[in-house]
């Protein structure tokens, strides 16, 4: 039951953040660029891929297909996000993380790095739980296992 909640919770995170980013791609470009990590030639491509990677992870988690693989990929992406925010904070950038859309430069007093990192750590915990226990109710994984588990 906890597994199902973790799976659907993480799915909701990815779908919401992915869709918000996907519908406002220019802001996403800006959000990616604001981190000043990637060269300009890569910013557009990363900003193009990221929202749809998030949506894909969300879709796979909703239906529970390849839950462990999806959870591992989720953890990798979340760790990258956390590293990005920490890096931005360490370099003294004044940016919004753009985690759920928006992003870019904000006034110096309006950054929220600690909250952003804590939030991502919470999502990371969901992913780690699913890596450890990927077998959850109402999943394609479990359905397939039941079907193929029956001897012919």
């Amino acid at each position, binding site marked *: 039951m906890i597994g199902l909640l973790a799976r659907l919770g993480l799915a909701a995170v990815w779908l919401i953040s992915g869709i918000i980013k*996907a*519908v*406002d*791609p*220019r*802001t996403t*470009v*800006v959000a990616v*660029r*604001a981190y*000043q990590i990637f060269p*300009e030639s890569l910013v*557009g*491509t990363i*900003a*193009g*891929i990221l*929202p*749809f*990677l998030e*949506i*894909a*992870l969300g*879709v*796979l988690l909703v239906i529970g*297909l*390849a839950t*462990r*693989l*999806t959870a591992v*990929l989720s953890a990798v992406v979340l760790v990258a996000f956390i590293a990005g925010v920490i890096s931005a904070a360490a*370099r003294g*950038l*004044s940016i*919004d993380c753009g985690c759920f859309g*928006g992003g*870019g*430069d*904000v*006034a*110096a007093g*309006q950054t929220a790095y600690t909250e952003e990192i804590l939030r991502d750590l919470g999502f990371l915990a969901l992913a780690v739980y699913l890596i*450890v*226990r990927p*077998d959850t109710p109402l999943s*394609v*994984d479990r359905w*397939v*296992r039941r079907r*193929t*588990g*029956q*001897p012919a």
Partner: protein
Amino acid sequence: MSGPGLAGSVEGNHSVAQSNNRRTPSGKSGATSKGVQPKAGQSKTPQPKPAAAKGSPAAKKPAAGRQSVAAARRSSNGNNRTQLIIGAIAVVVIIAIIIFGLVLNKKETAVQGEGYGASTQSVATVAEGVVTVAKPGATPGKTIDVFEDALCPICSEFERQFGQQMNQAIDQGDLAVNYHMLNFLNPRSFSGDYSTRAAAALLCVAQEGGTQPGLYLNYHSALFSTDNQPAEGGSADLTNEQLAELATTTGAPASAASCITAGTNIAAATAAADASSAALQAATGRIATPTVLYNGAPVSTTVDWLSTLLGQ
């Protein structure tokens, strides 16, 4: 399909397979460890317990035990193949969605009004440090407020994607734009006051050459072009002399250039930035650029925001 008793025994084998999976990082390595397990059980101490538990009923009923082990082995092989197929399907789904996204993204970030080029009809007027750009004599149906900081890279992206489309709408008399130049990124500039000085330079161009068709928008575009815009946290930015030189290159009168060089409008630009920041904070609850307001409400600047606004 199959009898409940059979399904039950398969279920039992499964729980063995699952507990194996849980100990190993992935279904794949779970498979190899299971193939090796009988040997591992003999050599390693932590393993014998489950092996013994499985072994002891088998010792009582040798035939049934052998059968269930064989069944477990068969179904585990099937599971491994199934796991691989499921993983492959997941990877294909991810790739397909990303490719779809890249195609969509190309459309969404495409330059609007591509080919229109510079504004040829617009004039600029200044009121309390805010520059209004419109076609003279026209009564534009829509007036928007655009909040920018000269150092803001997002504003450069905004200019790149929508600059020509805005030029066209303004030249056709459909749109008026109030430009609010903020300065909150000053600390991120090399000189520490680039945003303010660039805003002051824009005021000089508007005051001294605002009646010259297209001049203000051309200078505005030049400041935000990636060729001229300094980087945040960069090792250089434009001096007042360079800002004046750029204005002259764009076609501004000598009086505008001397106004920029002398820093005549620094105080006015600072006051205007403060007032505009307060207005932006009140309207959106935050200071972030670029922001477009229409009737005081923020406009989400998706690819078709301007055509949608003009079509309303």
